[in-house]
C-alpha cells in the first residue's frame, strides 16, 4: 500500500466526495484525518474510518475561524506526525444571479472555498519540504472551467484554484512536492441531489457518458494523484466529469 505510514488530511470529509476520498486514502494505508464543521460530523468521520478498519480520526474544523487552520495542522502534526497528503475538499455554494448577489454570499464563498486552501497549504509545506515528499490536491469544479449562471462566486473561487495549483506547483516542485487539482463534474451528492428533475435531465443530456458521476469516481482520481504512480504529474487539473467538458 503506497501511502502506508503517511498522514493525510481531508477537509470536508463527513459525507459525499470528501468521505469517498478519505476512505480511498485509508484503503491505500494512510492515517486519515478528516474534518467537518460540527462535532457530529467529526464523530461520523471517526466512525466510518473505524468501520473501514482505518487509522485516523475526525476533527472539527471551521475553516473561517481565525487561526483555526494553523492550529489544526499543529495539532495533527503533534499527534500523528507531519502531513504528507493534503486534500482541500471543503466547500459550500451560495448561488445567486450576480445582480442579486449579496456581499455576504460572495464573501462566504471566498472565505470558505478559497482562503483555507492558501492557509492549509502554507501550514503543511514545512513538513512536506523537509520530507522531500508531499501531495497537495485541490478539489475544484467543472464550473471553474465552463462557468455556470448563478455561480459567479463559486466558479470564480474554483477557477482561482487552477491558478493557485499551477503557481504552487512551480514553487515547490524541486522539493518533491506535487500540487494538482481535480475538477469534478456533476456528481451524485447532497449538493446536487437538491436540483429539480428537469434541470438534472438537461444536465445529463450534456454528459457524454449520460449519467451523473459517483463520489467514488472522484476519490479514485484523487487516490491516483496521491500515490507514487502520479509522481511526475504536477500543476495539472484532472477533469473527472463523464465528458461534459473536455479541455
Amino acid at each position: 500500500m503506497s501511502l502506508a505510514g503517511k498522514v493525510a488530511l481531508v477537509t470536508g470529509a463527513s459525507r459525499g466526495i470528501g468521505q469517498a476520498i478519505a476512505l480511498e486514502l485509508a484503503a491505500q494505508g494512510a492515517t486519515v484525518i478528516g474534518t467537518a464543521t460540527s462535532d457530529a460530523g467529526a464523530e461520523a468521520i471517526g466512525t466510518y474510518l473505524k468501520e473501514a478498519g482505518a487509522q485516523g480520526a475526525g476533527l472539527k474544523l471551521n475553516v473561517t475561524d481565525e487561526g483555526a487552520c494553523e492550529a489544526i495542522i499543529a495539532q495533527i502534526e503533534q499527534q500523528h506526525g507531519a502531513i504528507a497528503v493534503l486534500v482541500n475538499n471543503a466547500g459550500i455554494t451560495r448561488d445567486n444571479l450576480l445582480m442579486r448577489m449579496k456581499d455576504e454570499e460572495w464573501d462566504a464563498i471566498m472565505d470558505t472555498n478559497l482562503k483555507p486552501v492558501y492557509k492549509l497549504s502554507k501550514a503543511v509545506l514545512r513538513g512536506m519540504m523537509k520530507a522531500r515528499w508531499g501531495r497537495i490536491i485541490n478539489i475544484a469544479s467543472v464550473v471553474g472551467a465552463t462557468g455556470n449562471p448563478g455561480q459567479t462566486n463559486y466558479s470564480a473561487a474554483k477557477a482561482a484554484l487552477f491558478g493557485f495549483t499551477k503557481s504552487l506547483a512551480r514553487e515547490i516542485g524541486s522539493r518533491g512536492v506535487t500540487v494538482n487539482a481535480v475538477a469534478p463534474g456533476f456528481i451524485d451528492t447532497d449538493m446536487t441531489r437538491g436540483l429539480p428533475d428537469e434541470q438534472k435531465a438537461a444536465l445529463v443530456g450534456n454528459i457524454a457518458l449520460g449519467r451523473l458521476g459517483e463520489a467514488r469516481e472522484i476519490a479514485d482520481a484523487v487516490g491516483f494523484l496521491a500515490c507514487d504512480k502520479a509522481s511526475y504529474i504536477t500543476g495539472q487539473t484532472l477533469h473527472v466529469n463523464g465528458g461534459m467538458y473536455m479541455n
Partner: protein
Amino acid sequence: MENIEQRVKKIVAEQLGVPETDVKTESSFVNDLGADSLDTVELVMALEEEFECEIPDEEAEKITTVQQAIDYVSAHLAK
C-alpha cells in the same frame, strides 16, 4: 561544543550544497552561494531547528548573509 559561527556555517553548507570552505562570514546566500528564494526559506527552517528557536517571517527576511544569521542567533540565544 562548536561555537555559533561554526554551527551556522555548517548548516549553510549542508543546506546549500556548497563546501564549508566556501562559506565565509561575509557570504551572501543568494549572491555568493547560489541560493534561490526557496533555499533561503529552507535555510531559516534549518537554523530554527538547530538552535531550537522560532524566527519570525519579518526577521527571517532580513537574514541574507552568513554574518546576519550568526548575529540573529547570537542575539536570540543570549536572551
